[in-house]
């Protein structure tokens, strides 16, 4: 299935912004606005022609201070049709927030918690947004490009 066919399906929901394609990514990616994400995911999962029943992976990316953006990348897979699709959402670096898709795929619950833990991206309407890998009282978000770890954690020197 080509990207244009995906685009036709997506555009049956009323999009707030025009979608863009990224042909350089494998599988090919669709770049969305953050406010469109939830509706697009819903239609892609429910549409009988696509039926993306599995969410493989959610990746957070920090593009650094120069680009001043963050990204969340969703890798979808459809078991019955053997289709791959990548969705990308670009967010500002200050106060990044996007709707949670954990209501559609339960996998997203922990995957989004991990992205929140590492990048501080807020997932709105997430059922249980806590840190998952780092301790609850850790300061900062480790995978951001400008991350500096704290000197002491509970009186233990972090730098060994």
């Amino acid at each position, binding site marked *: 299935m080509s990207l244009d066919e995906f685009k036709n399906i997506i555009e049956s929901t009323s999009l707030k912004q025009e979608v863009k394609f*990224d042909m*350089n*990514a*494998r*599988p090919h*990616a669709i770049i969305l606005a953050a406010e469109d994400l939830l509706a697009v995911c819903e239609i892609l999962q429910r549409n009988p022609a696509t039926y993306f*029943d*599995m*969410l*493989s*992976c959610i*990746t*957070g*990316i920090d593009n650094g201070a120069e680009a001043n953006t963050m990204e969340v*990348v969703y*890798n979808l897979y459809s*078991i019955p049709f*053997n289709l*791959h699709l*990548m969705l990308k959402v670009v967010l500002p670096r200050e106060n990044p927030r996007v709707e949670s898709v954990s209501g559609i*795929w*339960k*996998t997203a*619950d*922990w*995957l989004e918690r*991990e992205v929140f833990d*590492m990048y501080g991206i807020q997932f709105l309407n997430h059922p*249980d947004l*806590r*840190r*998952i*890998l*780092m*301790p*609850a*009282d850790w300061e900062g978000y*480790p*995978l951001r490009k400008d991350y500096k770890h704290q000197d002491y954690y*509970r*009186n*233990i*020197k972090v730098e060994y």
Partner: protein
Amino acid sequence: MSKGIQYQYKEGNLSASEPNKLKAENLHSEEMILNLGPQHPSTHGVLRLEVLMEGEIVKEVVPHIGYLHRCFEKHAENLPYNQIIPFVDRLDYVAAMNNEHVYAMGVERMLGIEEQIPKRVEYARVLVAELNRIASHFIAIGTYGMDIGAFTPFFWIMRDREHIMRLLEWASGARLLYNYIWIGGLFYDLPIGFEEKCEEFVRYIKPKFQELEEILINNKIFIDRTANVGVLPLDLAINCGVTGPMLRASGLRYDLRRVDGYSVYPALDFEVPIGEGKMGKVGDCWDRTYVRYLELHESIKIIEQCLVQLKGDHKRTRDFDPQALVPKKIRPKMQDLYVRGEIPKGELGFFFRADGRNDFPFRCKCRSCSFVNLSVLPEISKGILVADLIAIIGSLDVVMGEVDR
């Protein structure tokens, strides 16, 4: 702080850095919170479970993870692609060859040299990966038996696994963390006589499977403890992103070696076993173990076919160099890539972003199957007994090194 002392007592140090999600003041009468782990033999590593119980009935389970977090993704952003391989070994440390295979495949796909890899290298990769798959399933089945009270099979299985460890040590020099599969090739060609020793191993191991089936899989006590316990329905499994033997046990014939057909797997003949609910319902703990048991036979089939190829069409020659295609400098073009492959626990995926200007990945995300498979635990352990909770954890076959990365 006085010199030389790393750590001093402060009152706040004792408060939990992983606070409970459930609050004691919200409990009803007769309810209590039980803390299982992080140091508990039945949790297969440092997994902590916060269990809300009413009497002996489990009402809610909240897993707490991260005790083995070693910052794989942060390290990967500061290392050249070939130096990440030892870190990849340490994700799922009982199946390191499979991890390396998927990772090397991903980087080769970014470089565009995936098609050029010599067939002998590919068959050797599949051979060692399948050997390691057997070792990993041995651990899964053996420790699972031990969790629920069968001690002897564990020793038998460890005895047999030792032969695989010796074989892989002979090939790579290490028992557990190999760094054997390199980007574009192998560390060394298989040692002389390896194929013959593998054949000897295959002859040795086949009757042992029969033994294993008799002592554990068809054991009355084992069936009583596992059948109809922890049933995972197929729709929930797919929605939760569960992959690997767990998904197959729920009744879907879905194996990435067949679906994606990467490496030389399309040329090999093997079945994809699924759970059929022979002892209870489809997708219960017994089915998950049985699917792993059946996969042992399939891996042996693959190994035999690889050995035929490695001794026949793609046999060793004097001038064969397994490092011939290993790039001196690895700098992929600017791109995003998601690559996935089947490791013993399920779908291992890597998301790469290369910026085209650096020898390091801009982002290297590991989608680990144990992490996702573990997240299904709260869904399937409501209203069960505590003893069954232990049986369910064992049947998930999680390796905490891969959950926490």
